[in-house]
């Protein structure tokens, strides 16, 4: 049976300006993301992998091309609609965790869910997730009281709270030590194999490539594999 396509990326290109120099970060990239995929996007520094991920995560807009999500081209959508898609369909995990510094672990996790349901229900779900990522004992701590690995677990739990169709992770282990990195990768593996989450992850760690079901390699803004 053919796999369900969640996102279709059609010929997207993206330019950046570095001072006076124009950098072509993505050149006519096309890609399908299937349900239950664990897609690894890899490549050297500057190959365009994070740029591609930001287009998929609707954090940035390509200059050309289309991104089809739920049969709709989302490139031209107004910001409020894109915010709604980020909230409901996508769970983005940043390299540097991007947690709200004035919110506790539990509050960081429940915040996106509060957009859609009552505080009570959001709290119940956040408590389940905080337990799932093994941070029950830290749920009332502020982010600056946590290690890097713990903060990344909070970011993962936050990304999961609204049951997104796709989890998007931008080098989630880049700032972590080996043990913490392994821990995070194991969480992603379980989320994909047991909970059947679709995951798109950027990494340049060779040993993390093997955990994916599919690998896309980028070089100079083009998919080479």
């Amino acid at each position, binding site marked *: 049976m053919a796999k369900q396509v969640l996102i279709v990326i059609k010929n997207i290109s993206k330019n950046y300006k570095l001072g006076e120099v124009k950098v072509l970060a993505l050149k006519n990239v096309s890609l399908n993301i299937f349900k239950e995929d664990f897609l690894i996007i890899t490549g050297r520094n500057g190959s365009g992998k994070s740029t591609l991920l*930001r287009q998929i*995560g609707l*954090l*940035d807009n390509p200059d050309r091309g289309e991104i089809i999500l739920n049969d709709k081209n989302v490139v031209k959508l107004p*910001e*409020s609609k894109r*915010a*709604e*898609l*980020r*909230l*409901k369909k996508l769970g*983005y995990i*940043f390299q540097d965790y*991007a*947690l*709200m*510094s*004035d*919110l506790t672990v539990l*509050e960081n996790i429940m*915040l*996106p869910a*509060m*957009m*859609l*349901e*009552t*505080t009570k229900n959001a709290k119940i779900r956040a408590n389940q997730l905080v337990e799932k990522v093994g941070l029950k004992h830290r749920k009332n701590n*502020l982010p600056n009281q946590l290690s890097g690995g713990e903060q990344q677990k909070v970011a993962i739990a*936050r990304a999961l709270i*609204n049951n997104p169709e796709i989890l998007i992770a931008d080098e989630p282990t880049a700032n972590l030590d080996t043990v913490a990195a392994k821990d995070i990768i194991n969480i992603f593996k379980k989320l994909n194999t047991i909970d059947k989450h679709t995951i798109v992850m950027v990494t340049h760690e060779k040993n993390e490539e093997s955990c994916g079901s599919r690998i896309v390699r980028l070089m100079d803004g083009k998919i080479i594999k």
Partner: protein
Amino acid sequence: MKSETKIPFFLINRYLLRGNKWKIVLIVFLMAIAFINLIFVSSLFSGIIKMSNDQIVNAYTGNIMITPENGKDFIEDADEKTEAIAAIDGVKAVSTQLTLPASLQYNNIKGNWSVLAINPDEEKNVTNVSQKMIEGEYLDADDEDGIIIGRQIAGGKDVEMDAFSFKNAQVGQIINLSLNGISKDYIIRGIFYTKFINTDQRAFISKKSLESLIPDVFMDKTNSIIIKTDNKVDERVIIEKIKNIFSANYYSWEDVAGLMTSVTKSFSSINVLLYIVGMLIAAITIFVVVYIDILSKRQQIGILRAIGIKPYLIDSLYVMQTVVYSCFGVLLGAAIYFAIIVPYFNAYPFQLPIGDAKLSINYVELIFRAETIIFVAIAAGLVPTIIITRMKLLDAIWGK
């Protein structure tokens, strides 16, 4: 209520609980200072206007002044008319004054000042001259050779009109009064200082002493009746009632104010100008502080956008935050104002030539200026938030 609308309230609560306390205190303090700046000058001007009005009423004319009808020099049958006026509901006290065409001489200095023959007991119920004696004593009703003079007549160091005064006349010394070719020596019983220059250029003798000076000439005559009314009573109502008793010229204290009325109007214009300038300064200061505060949070705003919080909620969050800051600022400013500044200026009023000015609060203006601060804060919060929520998401997250 849509589920998402609780987000700003939730985040404000957490920011206030866990945000940098010193930063919050500083922002609130700045808003408090901006608020005080907006109300201080207005209160000072109101205080000066109130003081000058009070001075006219208390030291000069009472609430109502009656002078002879046109073509006449005196109000005849003054005692009878005074009794009738005193019986009117709302009249607290009445005093008759007789301004004399007299000149005063002290040593070699001679001058024409207003010399008024009064009944001292009546006068002290209408004006406050009796309470403003800085040297000596007030007149007794049966004092036949005593005179009290204003500080501007007595003169001395630091007296504004010293050049045209008796240059430091003292209590107990003799002043010669000349009237219609008759002269009499008077002993200075006291020197008063009301700080209302028109009154301080007056001298008072008792009617009793006038009778001994020129018997029968001025008997039962007066050329001004001054009336103290109850504060709650409209002077115009009393004037209407007096008109039914006898004909004369009737003036409320506002009619007499003359120059002060135009000064009051000038103060009102200056007040509006200073309000606009103060509001601009407050707006710019609050805008800069709030802008820097929100700019320092652009990464957090970027994160909120990235996890799907809608821009309007982020706008609301920071606008509400500045509303909270400004409300606390107004409350703190009001607390500082009423607990420290007003009591201080009550104890140490501004000393002006026309009197001591305290701060006078007009509560309608106070509320208007509080609203101004809150409105300015809303604008100051909204503009930078809109800029950040509309900038490229990645730039916001990266704090560019």
